[in-house]
């Protein structure tokens, strides 16, 4: 049990996919303009990660090594399709604002990376905890980045105005702001872990 918990907790800080492994930066840059978008993206990726990790680890002994990547992609694409259709049915607004980045979870480096580096080498229970840990880490990182960007760049948090009369710095909503915030946060996390 302790081992499983370690698989879970490593994804949140020590091996945080965004800040430590620097994986999945493209969706992070693109969707972290508001907290709702960031959270939605995080949850969607977590679901895909969980599903693909379970299936990949369950059939890992049957997948031929040479064509493992196409097999992973097919499995991942299945779950992404589920997420996409669910989101369109129940959260149409979120689905609209995330746009192309939901289907693009298929080629998300975190999902593919965990399938390749972890699920195809470990048992199902450890893979489940790894997926949840990585997913939660990714979601937390996205929420943190998007909270900073939304509050500084739009003056709101979860769509609510924080301070009246605050002139937001539009830069933070645009791409350079995303790069700045991610860079600074990676720097801070590195500083904290080096201690």
């Amino acid at each position, binding site marked *: 049990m302790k081992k499983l918990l370690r698989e879970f907790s490593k994804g949140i800080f020590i091996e945080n996919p965004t800040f430590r492994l620097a994986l999945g930066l493209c969706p992070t840059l693109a969707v972290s303009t508001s907290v709702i978008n960031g959270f939605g993206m995080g949850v969607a990726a977590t679901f895909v990660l969980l599903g693909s990790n379970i299936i990949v680890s369950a059939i890992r002994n049957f997948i031929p090594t040479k064509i493992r990547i196409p097999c992973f992609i097919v499995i991942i694409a299945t779950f992404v399709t589920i997420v996409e259709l669910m989101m369109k049915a129940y959260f149409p607004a979120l689905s609209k604002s995330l746009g192309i980045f939901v289907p693009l979870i298929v080629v998300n480096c975190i999902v593919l990376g965990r399938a390749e580096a972890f699920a195809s080498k470990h048992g199902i229970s450890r893979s489940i905890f790894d997926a949840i840990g990585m997913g939660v880490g990714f979601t937390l990182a996205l929420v943190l980045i998007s909270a900073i960007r939304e509050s500084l760049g739009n003056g709101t948090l979860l769509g609510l105005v924080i301070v009246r009369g605050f002139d937001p*710095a*539009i*830069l*933070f909503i*645009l791409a*350079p702001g995303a790069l700045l915030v991610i860079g*600074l946060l990676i*720097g801070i996390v590195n500083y904290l872990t080096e201690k």
Partner: protein
Amino acid sequence: MNNLTVSPAPHITSGQTTQKIMFKVVLALLPAGLAGIYIFGLSSLRVILISIVSCVMSEAIFLKLRKRDPKAVLDGSALLTGLLLAYNLPPEIPFWLLVVGGCVSIVIGKQLFGGLGHNIFNPALVGRVFLHISWPLYMTTWKNPRWAVDAVSTATPLANEGARGFTYMDLFLGNHGGCIGEVCIAALLIGAAFLIFTKIISWHIPVSFMGTAMFLAWIFGGDGFFNGDFIFHLLAGGLVLGAFFMATDYVTRPLTKMGKIIFGIGCGVLTAVIRLNGSYPEGVSYAILFMNAMVPLIDRYTKTRKYGFVK
């Protein structure tokens, strides 16, 4: 730094120190600042002072946080950054914007990269571009010279070409709206001459930069080909300020003569492209920042061959 021992051969010391160079550049910038204060009134002095104070304070605080010698703030580089930042801002800019700009220039533009000598981008331009993207409204609210009839707000000549006839003399002396330090070309040229005369900067970057921008403005700036008003494009906007004082920043320019010329041509091309085809009326700061990012590449390909070195 005192414990470093240098190699045996006899060395000639030039007497140049960072501090001396920085203060010479500040001195060279003074005429343009005085002209800006004369043209736009005391609000320009306010901008210059607040910008310098905020840059120097940020530098001092951040040096302390990084556990570096706080005396390094006296090398004058933060002072110069503050001055250049103020020269790139409109005279009526709000107080808090200046404080933010100074902090961004020093902290993000310089200290986070490792301090003086390690910054990839010109710190003052980082601050200016940050402000320009974030608060475009404040950054493009210009003011007429204080003796003009409608002294409230106006467009720069570049943004409003031909709307009111500017003579070349108006542009040369700074009798129009614009950033504090860029309007008076005459004062800038005095400072530039001083810098070139004292060998602080060489002619390569300014000449290739302004030459390329003018050449392209001549070809593509007019209605047909080869009839653009290139003198207007030289005198309006921040081309002279950028070419002499910001593209030549010691840290963010290439090292060799060939590299400097390539750097200048690149800046000129980008400036002309942004001015003539971009959505912004002025592109000097973006051009210089973009070419700053290219400097390692330029340096790599224009390395001087070692004597007798065979590949």
